[in-house]
């Protein structure tokens, strides 16, 4: 069973539907016990970093998340909140990944919105995925590249399309909205 962490408005419904299409049992919850006891956890997110972090702290979910031992998948804002710091309203984040999250320059339209491919992909999440395949992004901030960047994409500059460290996985793109490629990536996560 996969627990999808519910917080703020979010897009937990889309993630839930994507898992159901893969015949995977899932529950949308903000109950710490349910989250701790799940086989896997998905930490989705659409919204703004500062209010999301405030919400997580109020509910005590910040500690719950960083202490998880099962595979965890952060998506979009979920990835950014797992990083150390976000420039979005000067927000201290969860710090699972040491990467900082910075604002895109304004040379091209922001948000980076639409389908984009990878410079490179690596690791279990991307098993069977080619760098030339496209996934759906929508974000105005990006995580810097580090040794933990298992996928890199380019929009004006190179950024982390996915991060991985121990049991923590995260994608900047939305696998639940990325057609068959996204389904494959979610399937890879389910099979970890």
């Amino acid at each position: 069973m996969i627990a999808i962490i519910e917080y703020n408005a979010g897009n937990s419904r889309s993630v839930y539907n994507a898992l159901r299409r893969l015949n995977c049992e899932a529950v949308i919850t903000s109950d710490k016990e349910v989250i701790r006891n799940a086989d896997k956890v998905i930490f989705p997110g659409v919204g703004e970093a500062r209010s999301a972090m405030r919400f997580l702290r109020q509910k005590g979910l910040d500690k719950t998340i960083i202490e998880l031992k099962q595979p965890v998948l952060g998506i979009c804002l979920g990835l950014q909140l797992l990083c150390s710091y976000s420039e979005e309203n000067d927000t201290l984040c969860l710090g699972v990944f040491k990467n900082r999250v910075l604002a895109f320059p304004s040379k091209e339209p922001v948000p980076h919105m639409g389908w984009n491919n990878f410079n490179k992909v690596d690791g279990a999440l991307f098993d069977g995925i080619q760098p030339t395949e496209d996934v759906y992004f929508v974000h105005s901030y990006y995580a810097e590249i580090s040794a933990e960047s298992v996928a890199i994409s380019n929009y004006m500059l190179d950024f982390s399309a996915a991060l991985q460290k121990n049991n923590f996985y995260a994608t900047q793109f939305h696998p639940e909205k990325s057609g068959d490629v996204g389904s494959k990536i979610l399937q890879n996560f389910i099979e970890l």
Partner: protein
Amino acid sequence: MLKKRIIPCLDIKDGRTVKGVNFEGIRDAGDPVELARKYSDSGADELVFLDITATVEKRKTLIDLVARISEEIQIPFTVGGGIKTVEDAVALIRAGADKISVNSSAVNKPQLIRDLASELGSQCVVLAIDTKVVKSEDRVVIRGGRNVTKWRTLDWAKEGVSLGAGEILLTSMGRDGTKDGFDIGITNKIANEVGVPVIASGGAGSMPHFTNVFSMTNATGALAASVFHFGEIGIPQLKKYLKTQNISVR
């Protein structure tokens, strides 16, 4: 490389897909969920659903429809039509919509854009602008083109972005339903100035029209309805053609 987006638009009336010419003379074009699945499977990059008869009592129908679409398709979709409050928008996002589009209600109350952006994030807020040349000036129109507003199109687009809109859906009313091609002039003007993604809409009639809008403007998406609904242009065929024209598509 970021790809240009091909976006079928489904106008919804009483739970069915419709498409008129110049917003009138409505014809029936099928079950929205079935069409949505077909487009998602054939390579559409996003979908837009515009509820053209949204009334309070029919809102529940729309929410149910959005929930069904979200269960069926694995690409992003925007829902618009009659969204007047943050509560309306949140209900649609909760049901599974990725973005909300506002048009007349934002013109009537610009603060709505700011409220939506602060509640849902800018990336969820699409400002739909209907534009028309009135006395040789690009002006924002509402109510299907019947009312000319005080806004010049570029000024309103910039105002909308400064209030928090994350994307502009720009429909040229003079072109809508004509199949004469996208309005390159106004699309270019807006896309060069606003700093957020712009979707061109109105006038798509042939595959070269898509080449033109992507090669001659900075629009990152192009929206069309009838050419897709009535099978005049297939999405796989359009994508293949655009690649031969060196337009980067998925």
